[in-house]
């Protein structure tokens, strides 16, 4: 652990925070504008050119708002709840690689904060911890709408996480590694979406549910639950939920890009410094797709959600594993 190592780590962590936070700010802004267009509205366009300074204005506004703690709430858990939601969301991003290692100032620098060779599982573990943030806050609020939202989110996340995990198993069988860098390298010729079209669809559906987005936004269904698990939250703590939700959105779309769309690799020859750009473009396309579904689809009913998760997605994911396993085993044995 030399000085150079420390500098590299600090710079990378700082950069990651910058990417996540600005990313979150502008993804949420983009979502507001894009949804507005889809619904024939204009959306926020007043602050700065085309409304580009809106996120900064929102952040300022939310920071100056009062934090209201309900009298009947469990104070400490109420205050800590959003923290539990935010930490896993940001930490998960630290294992996402953006491109090949580059050499800078005589040091080989990998384009991710830390190389965990079980990165895929690490992200899955963090996302399953992230649910604590939601339902601890929900429980601590001592509000029936919040509690129902929290219950829904835990049930939903357990059900759909299973599907995502099983899809990941198929990908790992194809790539022969849990490391995201290796998984991308295994797609040098053919991106896995062509081998795993069903897996891709299942993963996208599962991740929509995992990050509580429409059509799976039951935990905060505003037409029936006021605002679901964050009904009682105000000011910056309210913003933290939105922040972690968008951070999770970026993480799952990055994960989908790395596992199915070939990560930073493109079919045509490209210099190494372009890799992060290709990666970002693919991620943004997926993010746009998720906004599009939000603008298009209505919300599931809760029993439909459970039946769909356990009786449709789970068997399909299992079948996907069996078929993938058979094909891999047959191809490996000449």
């Amino acid at each position, binding site marked *: 652990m030399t000085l150079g190592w420390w500098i590299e780590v600090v710079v990378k962590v700082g950069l990651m925070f910058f990417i996540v936070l600005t990313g979150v700010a502008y993804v949420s802004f983009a979502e507001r504008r894009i949804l507005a267009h889809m619904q024939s509205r204009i959306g926020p366009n007043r602050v700065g050119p085309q409304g580009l300074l809106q996120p900064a204005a929102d952040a300022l506004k939310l920071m100056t708002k009062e934090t209201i703690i309900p009298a009947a709430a*469990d*104070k*400490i*858990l109420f205050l*800590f709840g959003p*923290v*539990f939601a935010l*930490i*896993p969301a940001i*930490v998960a991003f*630290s294992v996402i690689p953006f491109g090949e290692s580059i050499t800078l100032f005589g040091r080989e620098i990998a384009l991710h*904060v*830390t*190389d*965990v*060779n*079980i990165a895929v*599982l*690490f992200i*899955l*573990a963090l996302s*399953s*911890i992230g*649910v*604590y943030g939601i*339902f*601890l806050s*929900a*429980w601590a609020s*001592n509000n*029936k709408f919040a*509690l129902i939202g*929290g*219950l829904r989110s*835990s*049930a939903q*996340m*357990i059900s759909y*996480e299973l599907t995502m*995990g099983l899809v990941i198993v198929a990908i790992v069988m194809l790539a022969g*590694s*849990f*490391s995201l860098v290796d998984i991308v390298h295994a797609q040098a010729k053919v991106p896995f979406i062509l081998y795993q079209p069903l897996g891709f669809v299942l993963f996208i559906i599962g991740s929509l549910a995992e990050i509580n987005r429409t059509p799976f936004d039951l935990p905060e269904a505003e037409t029936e639950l006021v605002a679901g698990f964050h009904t009682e939250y105000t000011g910056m703590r309210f913003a933290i939920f939105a922040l972690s939700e968008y951070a999770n959105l970026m993480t799952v779309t990055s994960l989908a890009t790395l596992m199915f769309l070939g990560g930073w690799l493109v079919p045509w020859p490209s210099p190494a410094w372009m890799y992060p750009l290709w990666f970002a473009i693919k991620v943004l396309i997926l993010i746009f797709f998720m906004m599009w579904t939000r603008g298009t689809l209505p919300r599931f*009913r*809760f*029993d439909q959600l459970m039946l769909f998760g356990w009786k449709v997605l789970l068997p399909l994911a299992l079948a996907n594993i069996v078929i993938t396993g058979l094909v891999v085993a047959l191809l490996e044995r000449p």
Partner: protein
Amino acid sequence: MELVGFLLLAGATIAGAMGVVLQRNALYGALSLVGVFVATAVLYLMLSAPFLAVLQLIVYAGAIMVLFIFVIMLISVRYEESGEAAGVPGGAKRYTAMGLAAVLVILFTILSFKMALTPSGSEGPGSITELGFALYQKYMFPFEVASILLLVAIVGALSITRRHGRGLEGNVALEEHH
């Protein structure tokens, strides 16, 4: 350094385990158990078994405890409505809650750092390859027996909860939606 880390984590594990038993509030008890699981995961990491550590998090902290808390939240609604929750003095409750939350945050932080610093080759003891061979070749039989045991438990649980003479349609949860 290693010994200090181990002692701290072992202390956290034992304190958490005691918390599970001693907490009056069921939710805090469950949270203490989450603390135990996270601390155990970090212990696995110290033994350079990252795969086991992550599985510990996914299975225990992520799935099983979520189900536990799910049930506790459902029950504690009635528990608080009946006004019995006031049995614990406010001050003590506040400090245990604060301590718990702080310990959990610290444990998550340690976990993330430790995860980043653990050299994780795909070979050697504690690696996925090693684990796979152990599970599917060396201990194949006990592994399969364990899975059948779990299957029997699932079927048993289902047959206990099912009402007599009625199929799935008689399920209470489903009935509410019809």
